[in-house]
């Protein structure tokens, strides 16, 4: 199977590889996996609590070229978006952008799951943070 130029580009020059402190209250972490291929994908976002804008995103993926490209693209796309805007990203958007073949659609599903999981983790932190702050006052 041949990869599209965009996949190869993301594979050779992945954007935003790295990690952030998962214990920071501004950071949301999404860790997802696809058992059929053994891929595992970690995507982290740093959100401005005042504006809900995703200021930074990092990823680390162990898997095939399509999985790496999908998560690399996902970090590029979420950066600068608000949390709600990022939630509107659909896996088929990634499929189109990277021209993924049908057998690699699950890679894009994984990337969307990772975005959602990261945002979910961040939201949970914000909710659990509130009552403590209220009590402190």
């Amino acid at each position, binding site marked *: 199977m041949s990869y599209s130029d965009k996949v190869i580009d993301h594979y050779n020059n992945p954007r935003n590889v790295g990690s952030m402190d998962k214990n920071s209250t501004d950071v949301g972490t999404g860790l997802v996996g696809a*058992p*059929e*291929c053994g891929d595992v994908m970690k995507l982290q976002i740093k959100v401005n609590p005042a504006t809900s804008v995703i200021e930074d995103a990092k990823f680390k993926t*162990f898997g095939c070229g399509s999985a790496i490209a999908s998560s690399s693209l996902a970090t590029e796309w979420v950066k600068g978006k608000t949390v709600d805007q990022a939630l509107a990203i659909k896996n088929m958007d990634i499929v189109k952008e990277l021209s993924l073949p049908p057998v690699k*659609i*699950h890679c894009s*599903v994984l990337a*969307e*799951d990772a975005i959602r*999981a990261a945002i979910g983790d961040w939201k949970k932190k914000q909710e659990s943070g509130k009552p403590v702050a209220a009590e402190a006052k």
Partner: protein
Amino acid sequence: MTTKSTLTAISPKPLPEGTHTCWSCGSMRAAHFCESCGKVQPPTPVDYFTFFGLPPKLTVDVAALEKEFYELSRRLHPDLNARAGSREQEWSLEQSSMLNDAYRTLRDPIKRTEYLLHLEGVALEEQSKSATERARATGEIKKQIVPPDLLEEVFELNMQLEELRMNKKMGEDDPALTAEISQHKHALEAKHEALLQELETYWTDWDNLIDRSFLDQNQGSKAPAEERAKITAKMVDVLNRRNYIRNLVRDVNVALED
């Protein structure tokens, strides 16, 4: 997929219309041969369980299956039917080929389970995709098929493997890291083994359900689709985790050998 609808009727079931009688002597026939004249019969499109005259249950007497397999392969062997008509030869060839597929699938515990899931119409990838779509629509968090602690473990081990590969590239040796990875691998292999035992408990659940639905069917009620789905979902979950671990152990072996 035709196999799915045949399964809901669940064997022992009547053969398709027009195949009840021997093509040669007109007697009622057994599955593969005429009981009366012994001639090979044209293959009928049945699932592998039905091919062996078995109910679609997951606890299989493999020794008995093997015996049946050898008996059938002897009788269906194309050489044995060399003097028969070309139609019969063709049928025995087709039956032999199906026999081999059926036996290879049913004797292996994992293949057998996967085959049953296939008959039940379980499509793993489709399931994951529709769960993502549901999460998108409802805003709820999608439940990952792989439990979070296993994902953490997989991620950590992959990080270590990356380090190991990097070290090797640089010509460096880190015995402590290698030892840690090997230890991790053994733990995973034990988990892999334990998952098979867990799977077997769901076989029992499934087999009991099939036994019960036979009784219910006699009273004219429908097969309990919800209960079936509940058990198959558990089996899918175990197989997913098992596949994950198997792939990981394979990666570890490659990295350690390189």
